[in-house]
C-alpha cells in the first residue's frame, strides 16, 4: 500500500494503480469519460485533470490527467484546486459546443454520464454561438440505436468493440472535429456483445433499440436483482418494469461473472415476457384444440385430485428454478421425478457436477487471466456467450506479462496494446466447426466430436505418461497435441474449456484428463471450465432426477416449464402422451407441449418470479421478481403447492413463502442446504425497513392507476423477499445479492457501480453474491478416465449430423423476443463444399435430410469449415424437430 495526500488528506491506496482509479476507489467524485474500469486509460478526453504537487511546500503544482498518472508513494494531489476545477469545467464546455439540444428526447437522459459530469463540473451556460456540427446516423440493426450528433469523442465504443470484444465491423472514421463512430456502411452490428455499447458509451449515441419502442426513464423503472435465464453462465442483471411491461435489461455488476458486460442474448432476450404467446389463464382441454378457461382454485383442485389419486409423474426443467423443480419432485415423489432433458444431457450434467466436486470451476474473471487456453468441442460464443468475451481477454495475458520489464502498467491500455502489437498468448480451439473465437486462436482444428476427444486424450497423454494412450492417431494430430501440451504445461494459469454442446462424454473426460494431468505436474492454477446449456441445468441435475426415457406408464404427467418436443423426438413424446394419459403443463409461454396439455397452468415468467439458478460453476444465485405476476398467473411452485394442499399433503400445504419451501428443501436434501445462503431471507430488514425496488424518484405513483380507480391501492405485498414494490425503504446499500440497481447521488448513469464496490472493478461491498454448492471434496483429485473413443469410422452414404449453435435462435425463450427472432437464422443444412460437390448440390438448393426414417427438407448452406463427412443443422430451432445430435443421417436432393 502507498500513501498519497488528496487535498492534504493522507489516504492508503494501491500502488499499482493510477490516480483516477484510486480516487474513485476512495469515494471521491472525479469526473472522467474515456477511462473505463475494464478498459483502462488512454487519456483521450482530458476530463480527469487534477493538480499534482512536487512536495508539501509546492503551492503551484501542475495539472495532470489522473487516469494517466501512476500512483507514487507520498504523492500530493488536489481535486479541489481552482485551476483543476476550471480546467475540468472548460473541457466539458468544449465538449458541449457541438452537443445537440436533445436531452428531453434522448434515451440516455436521466442515466447519462455526460449529464452527470456536466453537473459535477458546474458548467451550466452556453457561451459558444457558432453552428453545431451534425452527422447522419446509421441503421445498426434491431438492437442498437445510433444518434451520432451526441458523440463527445471519448473513443470508448471503438475500444470496447474492436479491442475488447474483437468486433471488426465498427470503427472510427474521418478527421479533426469530424470523427465518426460507426460502421463502414449501414448494417446490423455483427458482434455478439454490441449491446454493451449502450452502457459503455457515456452519452446517448448508442442506446437500446428495443427499449426505445417502450421507452421509460431509468428513474421510473422498477428493478429487481436478477440472474440471466438465457444460458448457464449466470450473469447478474437488472430487469426493469413499468406499467406491467418488462421494459429493458441492464447489467448488474458481479466481479466474478459478468463484471460490466452482458451478451446480446441476455440483454435483449427479455421481450419474451411481453410476448403475445404468454399464457395468462388456467385452461382445461375439453376436445382436440378446444379449451375452457378455469379459475385458479378449481384448476388447482383439478390437479390436486390427480395428485391424491397418486399415479402421477413429473418432468422437471433446466430453465425452471431449483425451487420449482423441488416442488414438483415433492409433489410426485423422488422416484417419479424425471429430468426434462435428454438422457445424454443428464448423464453429462452429472459428469460435470462430479468434475466440479474434484476441482472448482474458474470464474469468468479467472478465465480472463488464463495465459494458455484450450477450447475443446464448445462453440462458446453461441452456447455460453459471456464466457467467450472473457476468453478473448486471455490471449492478452502472455504479452502483458512480457511487458513487465518495460514497466508499462496493464491499465495504461493504449501503451500496453501498442507494446504487445499483434502478439497473442497460446489459444487453441478444437471444435466441430468454426467459432467466433477463431480469430484469436494460434491454431484451430475442426473435426467430429469423437476425434476432438481423441485429441484431448492425446494432449493429456503427452502431459502425463500415466494417462491412457490414444491408438492410431494421425501424425499431424499427434503433433498438434504435442504443441497444445507444450503451451499448457509452460503456462502459469492454463485453462481448458469444454461443454455439453457436442453431447459427448468422451470430450468432457478428455478435458478432465488434461486438467488432471496439469495439476499432477503441480500446475495448481490449472482450471477446467464446462459450459452447461441452460440457466439451471446443474440445479436440475443436483435434484437427482431419473432419466427422461424412463418416464412412462403413469396415469398423469406434470411437465414443468418445459417443451418436451425440444427434448426428445416427436414420435417418442407422442407415444408418451398417447391414450387417456393426462398432461398438465405449467409454463409461461405457449408451445407444442402446452398445446397438447389437458390442463395448462399459467406460470410466472422469470422476471415475475423468485428462485435460484445454479450456474456452470455450481454457484447458486437467487433472482427476484421485478413485478408481481399479473392476474391469475403465479409461480410454478405456488401452483404445485395449491395442488398439494388440495391433495392434503401436509409438508407443502403450509408453504407461505419461498423461504418455507427452501427450508423444506434444505431438510430434504442436506447437500443443497447452502442455497439458503444465496441471498438473505424474506424477513431480512435494514434498520427495520425493506429494500426498495424503485428509485427514490419513481414518478406517477398517484396517477398510474388513477384511470381505473382514483384511490391508490397499497403496493403489492412480497412475502418472498426483503424487497418492496415501492420507492420507500432503506436507502443504504443492501447486501449485494439484493441490490436491484446502481444509483448514487450525482451518479445517475451505470458508472454508479463505482460507488458500490470495495475497490473499483473489485468485489461489491459485502461480498459477491451467490454460494458454491459443489465444494470440492478433500480427497485427491481422482484418476484418469480411460475410455478413449475409437477413430471415427465414416459410413457410406451417411453423414454425421452435428448441431450448430446460434446465439440468436438456439435458445428457446429469447426466440419469443421480436428483435432476437429477427436475427435468428432460417433453418438450413450445412455441408462442406467438397461434400456438397460429391452430392452434386449447390448452395440454396433444397435438400432432404433423412433421420429416423423421416425426411426433412432444408435449404443447403455451404460451410467450408465443416469437417468432411459431417453435416450441420442449427441447434434448437423450433422449425426443426428435436434432434438428438450428433446422429447419422442420409442426405439427398430435395424437391421444389
Amino acid at each position, binding site marked *: 500500500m502507498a500513501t498519497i495526500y488528496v487535498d492534504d488528506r493522507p489516504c492508503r491506496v494501491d500502488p499499482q494503480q493510477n490516480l483516477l482509479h484510486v480516487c474513485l476507489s476512495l469515494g471521491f467524485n472525479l469526473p472522467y469519460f474515456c477511462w473505463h474500469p475494464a478498459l483502462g486509460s488512454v487519456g483521450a478526453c482530458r476530463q480527469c485533470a487534477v493538480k499534482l504537487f512536487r512536495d508539501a511546500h509546492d503551492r503551484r503544482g501542475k495539472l495532470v490527467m489522473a487516469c494517466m498518472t501512476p500512483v507514487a508513494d507520498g504523492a500530493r494531489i488536489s481535486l479541489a484546486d481552482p485551476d483543476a476545477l476550471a480546467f475540468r469545467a472548460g473541457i466539458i464546455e468544449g465538449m458541449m459546443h457541438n452537443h*445537440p*439540444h*436533445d*436531452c*428531453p*428526447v434522448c434515451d440516455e*437522459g*436521466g442515466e447519462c454520464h455526460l449529464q452527470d459530469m456536466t453537473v459535477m463540473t458546474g458548467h451550466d451556460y452556453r457561451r459558444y*454561438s*457558432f*453552428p*453545431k*456540427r*451534425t*452527422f*447522419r*446516423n446509421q441503421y445498426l440493426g434491431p438492437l442498437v440505436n445510433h*444518434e451520432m*450528433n*451526441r458523440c463527445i469523442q471519448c473513443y470508448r465504443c471503438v475500444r470496447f468493440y474492436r479491442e475488447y470484444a474483437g468486433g471488426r465491423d465498427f470503427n472510427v*472514421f*474521418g*478527421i*479533426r472535429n*469530424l470523427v*465518426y463512430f460507426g460502421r463502414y456502411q449501414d448494417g446490423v452490428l455483427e458482434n455478439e456483445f454490441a449491446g454493451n455499447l449502450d452502457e459503455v458509451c457515456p452519452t446517448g449515441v448508442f442506446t437500446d433499440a428495443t427499449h*426505445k419502442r*417502450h*421507452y*421509460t*426513464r431509468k*428513474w*421510473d423503472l422498477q428493478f429487481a436483482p436478477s440472474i440471466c435465464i438465457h444460458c448457464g453462465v449466470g450473469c447478474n442483471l437488472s430487469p426493469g418494469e413499468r*406499467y406491467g411491461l418488462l421494459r429493458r435489461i441492464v447489467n448488474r455488476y458481479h466481479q466474478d461473472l459478468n463484471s460490466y458486460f452482458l451478451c446480446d442474448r441476455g440483454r435483449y432476450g427479455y421481450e419474451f415476457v411481453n410476448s403475445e404467446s404468454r399464457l395468462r389463464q388456467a385452461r382445461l382441454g375439453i376436445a382436440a384444440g378446444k379449451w375452457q378457461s378455469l379459475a385458479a382454485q378449481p384448476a388447482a383442485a383439478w390437479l390436486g385430485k390427480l395428485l391424491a389419486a397418486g399415479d402421477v409423474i413429473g418432468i422437471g426443467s433446466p430453465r425452471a428454478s431449483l425451487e420449482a423443480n423441488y416442488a414438483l419432485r415433492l409433489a410426485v415423489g423422488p422416484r417419479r421425478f424425471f429430468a426434462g432433458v435428454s438422457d445424454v444431457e443428464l448423464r453429462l450434467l452429472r459428469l460435470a457436477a462430479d468434475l466440479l466436486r474434484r476441482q472448482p470451476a474458474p470464474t469468468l474473471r479467472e478465465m480472463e487471466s488464463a495465459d494458455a487456453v484450450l477450447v475443446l468441442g464448445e462453440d462458446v460464443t453461441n452456447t455460453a456467450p459471456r464466457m467467450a468475451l472473457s476468453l478473448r481477454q486471455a490471449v492478452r495475458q502472455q504479452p502483458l506479462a512480457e511487458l513487465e520489464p518495460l514497466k508499462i502498467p496493464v491499465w495504461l491500455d493504449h501503451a500496453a496494446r501498442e507494446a504487445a502489437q499483434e502478439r497473442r498468448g497460446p489459444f487453441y480451439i478444437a471444435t466441430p466447426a468454426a467459432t467466433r473465437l477463431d480469430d484469436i486462436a494460434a491454431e484451430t482444428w475442426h473435426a467430429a466430436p469423437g476425434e476432438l476427444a481423441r485429441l484431448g486424450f492425446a494432449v493429456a497423454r503427452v502431459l502425463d505418461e500415466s494417462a491412457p494412450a490414444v491408438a492410431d492417431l494421425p501424425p499431424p494430430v499427434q503433433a498438434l497435441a504435442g504443441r497444445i501440451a507444450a503451451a499448457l504445461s509452460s503456462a502459469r494459469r492454463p485453462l481448458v474449456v469444454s461443454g455439453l454442446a457436442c453431447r459427448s462424454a468422451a470430450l468432457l473426460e478428455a478435458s478432465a484428463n488434461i486438467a488432471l494431468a496439469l495439476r499432477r505436474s503441480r500446475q495448481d492454477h490449472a482450471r477446467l471450465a464446462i459450459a452447461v446449456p441452460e440457466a439451471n441445468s446443474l440445479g436440475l441435475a443436483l435434484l437427482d432426477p431419473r432419466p427422461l426415457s424412463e418416464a412412462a406408464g403413469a396415469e398423469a404427467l406434470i411437465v414443468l416449464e418445459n417443451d418436451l418436443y425440444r427434448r426428445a423426438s416427436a414420435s417418442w413424446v407422442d407415444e408418451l402422451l398417447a391414450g387417456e394419459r393426462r398432461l398438465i403443463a405449467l409454463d409461461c409461454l405457449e408451445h407444442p407441449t402446452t398445446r397438447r396439455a389437458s390442463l395448462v397452468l399459467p406460470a410466472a415468467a422469470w422476471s415475475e418470479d423468485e428462485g435460484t439458478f445454479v450456474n456452470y460453476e455450481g454457484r447458486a444465485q437467487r433472482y427476484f421478481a421485478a413485478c408481481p405476476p399479473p392476474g391469475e398467473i403465479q409461480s410454478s411452485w405456488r401452483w404445485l403447492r395449491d395442488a398439494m394442499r388440495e391433495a392434503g399433503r401436509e409438508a407443502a400445504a403450509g408453504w407461505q413463502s419461498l423461504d418455507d419451501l427452501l427450508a423444506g428443501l434444505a431438510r430434504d436434501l442436506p447437500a443443497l442446504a447452502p442455497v439458503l445462503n444465496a441471498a438473505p431471507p424474506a424477513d431480512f430488514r435494514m434498520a427495520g425497513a425493506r429494500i426498495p425496488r424503485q428509485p427514490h*424518484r*419513481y*414518478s*406517477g*405513483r*398517484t*396517477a*398510474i392507476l*388513477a*384511470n381505473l*380507480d*382514483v*384511490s391508490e391501492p397499497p403496493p403489492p405485498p412480497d412475502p418472498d423477499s426483503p424487497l418492496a414494490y415501492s420507492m420507500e425503504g432503506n436507502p443504504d446499500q443492501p447486501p449485494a445479492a439484493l441490490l436491484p440497481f446502481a444509483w448514487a447521488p450525482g451518479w445517475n448513469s451505470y458508472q454508479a457501480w463505482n460507488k458500490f464496490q470495495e475497490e473499483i472493478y473489485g468485489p461489491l461491498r459485502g461480498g459477491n453474491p451467490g454460494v458454491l454448492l459443489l465444494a470440492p471434496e478433500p480427497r485427491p483429485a481422482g484418476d484418469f478416465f480411460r475410455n478413449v473413443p475409437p477413430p471415427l469410422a465414416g459410413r457410406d452414404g451417411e453423414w454425421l449430423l452435428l448441431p450448430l449453435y446460434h446465439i440468436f435462435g438456439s435458445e428457446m425463450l429469447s426466440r419469443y423476443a421480436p428483435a432476437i427472432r429477427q436475427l435468428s437464422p432460417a433453418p438450413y443444412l450445412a455441408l462442406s463444399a467438397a461434400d456438397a460437390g460429391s452430392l452434386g448440390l449447390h448452395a440454396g438448393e433444397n435438400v432432404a435430410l433423412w433421420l429416423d426414417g423421416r425426411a426433412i427438407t432444408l435449404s443447403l448452406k455451404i460451410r467450408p469449415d465443416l469437417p468432411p463427412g459431417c453435416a450441420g443443422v442449427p441447434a434448437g430451432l423450433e422449425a426443426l424437430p428435436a434432434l438428438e445430435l450428433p446422429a447419422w443421417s442420409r442426405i439427398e436432393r430435395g424437391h421444389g
Partner: protein
Amino acid sequence: MFGIVRTIWDVFRHGFQPRVTRQYPEQPAYLPPRWRGRIILSRDPDGGERCVACYLCAIVCPVDCIALQATEDAAGRRYPEFFRINFSRCIFCGYCEDACPTYAIQLTPDFEMSEFRRQNLVYEKEDLLISGPGKYPGYNFWRVAGVKIGGKDKGESENEAPPADLRQLLP
C-alpha cells in the same frame, strides 16, 4: 361599561359601510396569467403536439400525480401515448411547468374544476391538450433539437451546420 357601549356602536356603524363581497360567479375575478390553476398541454406554433414525453414533469411532481408513456411516430417525433394528471392530488405548485423543456405543460388561470366525484378529476391527454401554444407563442423545441423528425432533416435545426461529409479529407 364604556367598552360594551363602544362595541355596540361599532357594530351599528358597520351596518352602513360599503359592501366588499364580490358576486362570484356572476362577477368573475381577474386572475393574472401567472396564476397557477388548471393544467393544459399546449401545441407548438406549427400546431404539433408540444410534449415530447421526456418525463421531466412527472419526476419533478412532488405528489407524483403525472403519469405518461412515450412513443414515436414513424418519422421519429416523440410524443406521449397517454398523459394522465390526477387533479385530485395536484397541489398546483407549478413545478411541472418549470421543469418542462418544451413549454408544453402550462398552468392556467382557471380554478373552476370542482367535481362531485373524485374520479372525474383524473384528466387524460384528450382533456388536457389545447389547440394553441398557450403562454409561450414562439417556441418550437424540434427546431432546436438535433434529432431528425418528419419535415426536418439533420442539420436543419437552428444553428446547425449541414451534416458532415465523412469522405472529405481536407484538414
